């Protein structure tokens, strides 16, 4: 049996997702990642010897082709990281100024996408748990999931839903051996943050590499041994 950890990361071509992919590769994991832009996927796949998958987790029709390619590439799955996120309106806007379609996009990317992908991969994750390898789903959260920040309504509401869903998944699937983590990596110097707060001083922000190390440690801590 192949003992290398098998990990899938959504949103793997920039920001925290890319930093996490690099950290996991450095630790010897086999990684498949998902992103929307074919050229960026190809570049990251080549540079980091990872399996690149082109797809959009916000699109229902993309989910099963993504899940198929993940398990085909890795021969199973031990860890799913739902990292891909949408801010909703960019630049940020008051809820009263947010278009319904912008809220729908945030919910599709940050709630429905992780729900659908987790469900499509639950067979593979639970098989891994039964085989004693362990199984972890890490949903990347935010302090906006807990605190009410003006202008972060679409993002905050969607991340709050994801956080609560993680808790319920965890309750329901503990007996199957599938662990759920919801972790806030902090305010990082990433493209998403730059979109939200264009004038932030990068020096005051956390490096995504530091957050990636913390997340990789948390994943390792949730697996057997």
């Amino acid at each position, binding site marked *: *049996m192949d003992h290398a950890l098998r990990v899938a990361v959504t949103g793997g071509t920039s920001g925290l997702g890319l930093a996490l992919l690099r950290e996991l590769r450095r630790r010897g994991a086999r990684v498949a990642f998902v992103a929307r832009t074919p050229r960026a996927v190809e570049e990251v*796949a080549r540079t980091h010897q990872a*399996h*690149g*998958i*082109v797809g959009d987790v916000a699109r229902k*029709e993309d989910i*099963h*082709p*993504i*899940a*198929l*390619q993940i*398990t*085909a*590439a890795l*021969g*199973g*799955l031990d860890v799913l990281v739902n990292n891909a996120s949408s801010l909703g309106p960019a630049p940020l806007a008051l809820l009263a100024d947010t278009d319904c379609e912008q809220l729908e996009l945030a919910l599709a990317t940050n709630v429905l996408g992780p729900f659908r992908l987790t469900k*499509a991969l*639950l*067979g*593979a994750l*639970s*098989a891994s748990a*039964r*085989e*004693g390898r362990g199984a972890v789903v890490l949903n990347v959260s935010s302090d906006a999931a807990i605190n009410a920040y003006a202008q972060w309504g679409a993002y905050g509401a969607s991340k709050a839903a994801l956080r609560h869903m993680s808790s319920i998944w965890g309750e*329901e*699937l503990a*007996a*199957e051996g599938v662990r759920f983590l919801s972790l806030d990596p902090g305010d990082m110097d990433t493209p998403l943050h730059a979109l939200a707060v264009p004038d932030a001083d990068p020096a005051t922000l956390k490096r995504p590499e530091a957050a990636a190390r913390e997340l990789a440690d948390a994943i390792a801590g949730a697996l057997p041994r």
Partner: protein
Amino acid sequence: MIAAAEPVQRPAAARLLVIDAQGAMAHAARSSLVDYLRPGDLVVANDAATLPASLHGSHLPSGAHVEVRLAGRSSLGREDVRFSAVVFGAGDWRVRTEDRALPPPLAYGDRLALGPLVATVDAVLGHPRLIGVRFDGPADAVWAGIARHGRPIQYAYLSTALALWDVWTPIAAAPVAFEPPSAGFTLDWSLLGAMRSRGIDFATLTLAAGISSTGDPALDARLPLAEPYRVPASTAAAIRRAKAKGGRIVAVGTTVVRALEHAAARSGEGVADQRIGPGDRLRVVDAILSGTHEPQESHYQMLRAFQDDDLLGRAGDALGAAGYRTHEFGDSVLVFKKG
């Protein structure tokens, strides 16, 4: 029997005919399946996810339209992108397979353009529809092409085009099946929880379930093709535990019977190439949960290893008289081995 035409995996009204080891028959709601199992029993399912194995495109030497249905592979390996395939000419699933046009004559070395994929015919297997194909390009690109261009194999009795979510069982894991291991449609997470709370164990294996029908009697006689499988060590251990304490091994589907009897309950990879039928002694499996099958199907032959023909004949009459539905989205039977 009536064809189940809607792709609903777990209709609330799904039915179950139970035949016990003494040959007694009982009609039940399929939702009460767990009531026919005992603490200490082990339920084993096939966790293969289903590939969208129907690929439309063209036969480049003739320009003719073809539908290539991937039907088998000699291993579960991710780098193994060589398949056996059944090829149809013009038309799609809405036409009964019996009525489908032949493909143009296919020869070794012919190229096929299938959406983003290109494949080469690398074997002609003694029938105008049956070939070996090898895809061009790196494995990741081949799986991406199949994932995005392929459609689930389906038949004319269905009312609507299938999506992948229609054919993946709730426990679907490795994408290696060519048609769904449809007995697994019965399993949802609530049922797995109910089994656990009653002391009924659950384990999985992976078998690349092949194509079930081609519409051509000469080809159908060659089914099922050889099917690669993998039995995890944890599953082999669960079987030993169950056997040691007198529990029964309940196979969810014919593919699980085929894999477990071929592997003789050992773990590891293999290729199941045997047929199971009347007179075969089952060494591992004590019961099968299966769809309802007509006597001419290969799946039915397997049931003959569990119970006598006259009992199965009476069971078939009972299914017909009680209006059971057949095919992959139909009703089910739970057949215990004759005691």
